[in-house]
């Protein structure tokens, strides 16, 4: 079972993946990264190391899809989930070929994911920054909701003014569940876990 975490650059995908994995009981991150050249790299990192290495304030820190395997204890048999962190998709045509290539790998994975978790930066609605919600989010939503289990995670809900943003997002993406989360403070992780569990069979 593969849960794909997608969204625009710098909305907090990597931090969400790491913190969510640790919330699900993971102590050590075993990173499997498929580079753009097709080689699979395996790295073992402690959670803190992983955060330091993978999360940054700058956009496009993640340059390749990275999967983290987690076992969720639910019922008698633990179930295996791969949470896949992806390259953020920016608006328009990116000027760097390398990043375009990396983003293409995300787009390709979108079609094969079992569950799509779509992160939106709820603190940047109406802004012009790279992580602000925009046309790309619309297209991801309209595509992914037809593919299978799909939810929108309104991230950065810990920032001020987020209640407004949340109702705006709910209004805009009516028909799709929108869960307020904070990758930083781990708010809403319980709901995300129950959503994922519900769609794992």
């Amino acid at each position, binding site marked *: 079972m593969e849960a794909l975490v997608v969204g625009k650059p710098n909305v907090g995908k990597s931090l969400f993946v790491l913190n969510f994995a640790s919330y699900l009981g993971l102590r050590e991150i075993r990173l499997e990264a498929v580079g753009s050249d097709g080689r699979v790299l395996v790295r073992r990192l402690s959670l803190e190391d992983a955060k330091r290495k993978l999360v940054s304030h700058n956009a496009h820190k993640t340059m390749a899809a990275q999967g983290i395997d987690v076992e969720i204890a639910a019922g008698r048999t633990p179930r295996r989930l791969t949470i896949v962190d992806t390259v953020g998709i920016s608006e328009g045509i990116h000027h760097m070929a390398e990043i375009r290539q990396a983003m293409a790998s995300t787009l390709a994975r*979108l079609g094969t994911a079992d569950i799509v978790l779509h992160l939106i930066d709820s603190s940047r609605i109406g802004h012009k920054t790279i992580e602000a919600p925009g046309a790309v989010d619309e297209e991801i939503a309209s595509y992914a909701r037809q593919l299978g289990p799909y939810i929108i995670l309104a991230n950065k809900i810990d920032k001020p003014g987020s209640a407004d943003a949340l109702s705006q997002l709910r209004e805009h993406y009516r028909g799709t569940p929108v869960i307020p989360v904070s990758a930083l403070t781990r708010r809403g992780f319980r709901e995300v876990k129950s959503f994922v569990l519900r769609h794992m069979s």
Partner: protein
Amino acid sequence: MPEPDYQPGYSQDPMTSREVLAWFEAGRLPSDGALKHLQKLDSRITDGRSSIRAPSQESRRKRIDSVLHELDGLVGLHDVKNMVHEIRAYVDVQQRRLELGLASEPQTLHMVFSGAPGTGKTTVARILGRLFQTMDVLPKGHMLEVERADLVGEYIGHTAQKTRDAVKRALGGVMFVDEAYALARGGEKDFGKEAIDTLVKAMEDHRGEFLLILAGYSDEMAWFLATNPGLLSRFPLHLHFPDYGASELAAIARIMLAERQYQLSADADRQLTEYLVRSEGHWHVNSGNARLVRNLIEGAIRRQSVRLIRRLDMATREELMTLTWADVEGGL
């Protein structure tokens, strides 16, 4: 809908998902455009409509059509058939609107059937139950046929209990109250009024969980609906079942005979049609319409048996199947 052309000089759209990604990597498509194309080319969505989602959709359509086909097979009843087709279209559209997140009218489809006995009210109600079941409006689609005696109790407090029990049995299907006007006939102190109130309350409590059909003679039903001001507004659909004409009754006779593997001799068929035409308009109001035809046919079948019993060993297959005018006439 024509897709906007993202890059002058490339008038064609990418043909495969792989091509989309290649174009995207080459900087020929913006992110949202690429996603749009991927969505359009995704076989799980485009083909999926015909291969994964569609079979259930298609078989659902087929099942609905087969139920409607059965309805259309009934003789006459043009207005009723049109109304049922309208209801079907309405329910389908409302469901589709709901899927797309549009405001959809709540489906209150409770009905009043008015018409003389033997005009097909029960038959149509039964078909409606099955229709709504295949359309996922009602989970079970069975039909519970009740009359005054099934709803009205014998002592104070008994009626509400009895009516609620009946509703409980009808949940998920159709509750067909035959001769519904009888509920209001007893006057002010009658328990029938309590039964009506309980039914009205159940319609609110179990909104959308069952379909209530009140049936009865036209005049009495009009009077009945007038007695209780809340009733008329709660039954948005009124279906009138007209009396059958002569040719329709003849057609019904032929269908009933074919079901029983009998046939009319050419002479009997002509005479019967003539007789029905002659007496059209002279029937007693409640003479029974289709039921009258059934009684006529069953009588004719019995008389044919009497006619044949004396020389049963010599009777041919043809003779065993054929009713003569003499057989039919005896019942008129």
